[in-house]
């Protein structure tokens, strides 16, 4: 097969597995409606769905996986943004909140966001878990309770501190922080024999990244699971506290528009793992009982602001592991009941991502783009959801039934954004920046820390006056002890239904305060293992 033969020496589990008879159905190519039966149906194949699929098939259950995106594998990962964003991301990587003030990067493909994330792996911070226990009465999810699940998933996905030198974009963050006495440390990554290319966000072409695409999903398929792609889980049919079937809508080959094809999945048990926008949307469309009106509320994003710097030497931020250095100084040094805290990291700097994020247009923008190899970028991820002034967003349905997240940015956020823009500028100047430009639509660079500090303190900030992005969607179906605040009980079950579970980042009562993939893996591994035991006994 010529199309799959680009990297003959690199294994592609799907090229080999499909040949051995894996059950994979592309709903965009269906000529007629179809019905599938399984013990368990899992909606979504990201961090939650993938982890659950492996555990449940290991327990001998028959599993059907429903994925809205396409199956694209390493042989077709060409490290080109123009292909990768429409193919692998929700809304071509241009998903926006309702007022368009936040751009959300979220995967939509087999493997979900794990196929396109930057591999950063953090255990859930102990302070976050303590907050959940204290404020939400959550039991069984302490640092000690989760430790064996973290260990298990770290082993499964080869998660370890990055051993190679950071690329210059990350090294500058480390250097600048160190010069100011701010602690920075090395990020753990889920990679095996990584080539240090820097294209994690476009799908790993060497299968070094241990995403769901190359680990749990092939394992589930090898045990007889069925995978349906380009199928949008639309509605759960239910009566008297039981879900009886899931109705899915086929999508066209571009993955944008519904087709007339319907796929009905009958199962004993249903798992929603479509991410913190998709999962609440499915529950809302299904009109499930929600007596306390909590589904889709308190959705969190780690809203993120950026700062660009022009360095004297080449940075080549498009090359090398995209994230390898972080600082939690501005999380650890602020209490939850105070101003919002933020985590510092660095992003990959590729042409499209940079062009759409760098300020302005015309000559000013072009001048920045010509400097791209010298551009260094730091990002600050706000830890949202821990303070009464940080209630997060709300998932709503458009008239066509598709979801949109309403996430207003308030003064509590903008105060954090302003402090973060100043912090990042100071670090960048300390790292040797010649000029620094905060991520804002109007281009205004500063030549010194002193100038930047004064200007940033006077910036007028509000929606679309600073660039705000998110790569982490969390919450909206909180897990907890109190039914008035948590739609999900501590086994992961949707309280109002006997056989519906939510196994993804939707269950977080707040944001994580760190890149969330390992939190999803560990919490879902724990929940899915209990479910497998329960279903095995039944």
């Amino acid at each position, binding site marked *: 097969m010529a199309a799959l033969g680009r990297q003959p020496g690199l294994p592609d589990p799907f090229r080999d597995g499909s040949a051995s008879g894996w059950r994979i159905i592309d709903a965009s190519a269906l000529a007629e409606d179809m019905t599938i039966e399984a013990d368990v149906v899992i909606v979504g194949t990201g961090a939650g769905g993938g982890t659950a699929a492996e555990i449940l098939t290991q327990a001998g259950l028959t599993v059907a996986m429903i994925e809205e995106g396409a199956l694209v594998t390493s042989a077709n990962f060409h490290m080109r943004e123009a292909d990768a964003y*429409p193919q692998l991301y929700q809304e071509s990587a*241009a998903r926006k909140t309702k007022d*368009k003030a936040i751009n959300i990067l979220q995967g939509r493909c087999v493997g979900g966001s794990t196929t396109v994330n930057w591999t950063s792996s953090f255990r859930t911070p102990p302070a976050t878990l303590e907050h959940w226990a204290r404020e939400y009465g959550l039991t069984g999810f302490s640092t000690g309770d989760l430790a064996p699940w973290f260990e298990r998933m770290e082993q499964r996905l080869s998660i370890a501190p990055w051993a190679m030198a950071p690329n210059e974009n990350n090294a500058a963050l480390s250097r600048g922080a160190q010069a100011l006495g701010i602690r920075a440390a090395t990020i753990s990554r889920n990679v095996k024999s990584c080539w240090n290319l820097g294209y994690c966000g476009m799908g790993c072409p060497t299968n070094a990244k241990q995403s769901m695409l190359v680990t749990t999903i092939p394992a589930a398929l090898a045990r007889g699971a069925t995978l349906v792609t380009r199928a949008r889980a639309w509605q759960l049919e239910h009566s008297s506290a039981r879900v009886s079937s899931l109705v899915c809508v086929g999508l066209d080959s571009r993955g944008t528009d519904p087709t007339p094809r319907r796929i009905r999945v009958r199962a004993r048990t249903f798992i929603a793992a479509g991410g913190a926008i998709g999962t609440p949307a499915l529950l809302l469309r299904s009109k499930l009982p929600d007596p306390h009106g909590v589904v889709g509320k308190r959705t969190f994003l780690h809203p993120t602001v950026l700062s660009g710097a022009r360095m004297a030497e080449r940075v080549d931020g498009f090359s090398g592991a995209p994230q390898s250095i972080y600082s939690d100084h501005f999380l650890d040094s602020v209490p939850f009941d105070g101003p919002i805290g933020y985590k510092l990291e660095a992003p990959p700097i590729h042409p499209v991502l940079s062009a759409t994020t760098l300020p302005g*247009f015309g000559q000013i923008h*072009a*001048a920045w783009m010509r400097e791209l190899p010298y551009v260094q970028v730091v990002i600050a991820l706000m830890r949202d959801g821990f303070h009464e002034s940080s209630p997060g967003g709300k998932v709503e349905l458009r008239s066509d039934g598709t979801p949109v997240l309403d996430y207003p940015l308030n003064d509590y956020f903008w105060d954090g954004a302003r402090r973060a823009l100043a912090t990042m500028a100071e670090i960048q100047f300390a790292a040797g920046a010649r000029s620094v430009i905060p991520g804002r639509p109007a281009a205004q660079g500063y030549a010194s820390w002193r100038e930047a500090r004064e200007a940033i303190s006077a910036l007028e900030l509000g929606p679309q006056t600073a660039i705000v992005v998110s790569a982490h969607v969390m919450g909206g179906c909180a897990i907890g002890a109190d039914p008035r605040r948590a739609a999900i009980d501590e086994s992961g079950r949707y309280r109002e239904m006997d056989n519906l579970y939510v196994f993804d980042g939707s269950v977080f009562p707040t944001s994580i305060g760190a890149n969330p993939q390992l939190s999803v893996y560990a919490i879902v591994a724990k929940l899915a293992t209990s479910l497998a035991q329960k279903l095995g006994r039944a």
Partner: protein
Amino acid sequence: MTRRSLLKAGVAGGALLLLARTFHAPAAVAARPDTGVGMLDSDARTVLAAIIPVVLDGALPSGTAAAQAGDEALAGAARAIAGLPPAARRELDQLFALLAFAPTRALVAGVWSPWPEASRESIAAFLVRWRDSRFALLRSAYDALRQIILGAWYGNERAWPAIGYAGPPPLALD
């Protein structure tokens, strides 16, 4: 950019948008062609063709290569829009209808000449006005236009030599 949100935002042109939608309904497209600028309706094509040289001023090659590069940027924008979900495409349709309909083009965008004749200065002034507008809706529309165009151009490998990007590394096993 729904009609309701436009009115809610208090934009004076809201009523005019109604007019634009009434008298300037975009021709219904029966099937969506797969490639090229054919994916765009004529409103979108007219507006984007005029805005592209301004947004990409300093980025597009000069001389004879400029026209072809502009065409490629337009085709890239068409692909980007076609890859969006229906709800986002509908919003863009409304934005392009608003910008293409002469009365709203003049009153809401402040561009008084038809797009093909509008000066670069007047188009740049329109973009800056929307960028700095007190209406979040116009700011977001500005951002949508520039993101579509900039993304389309810098996703094209012809844009890369000028920005010092060598493209994806070769895989040793190729």
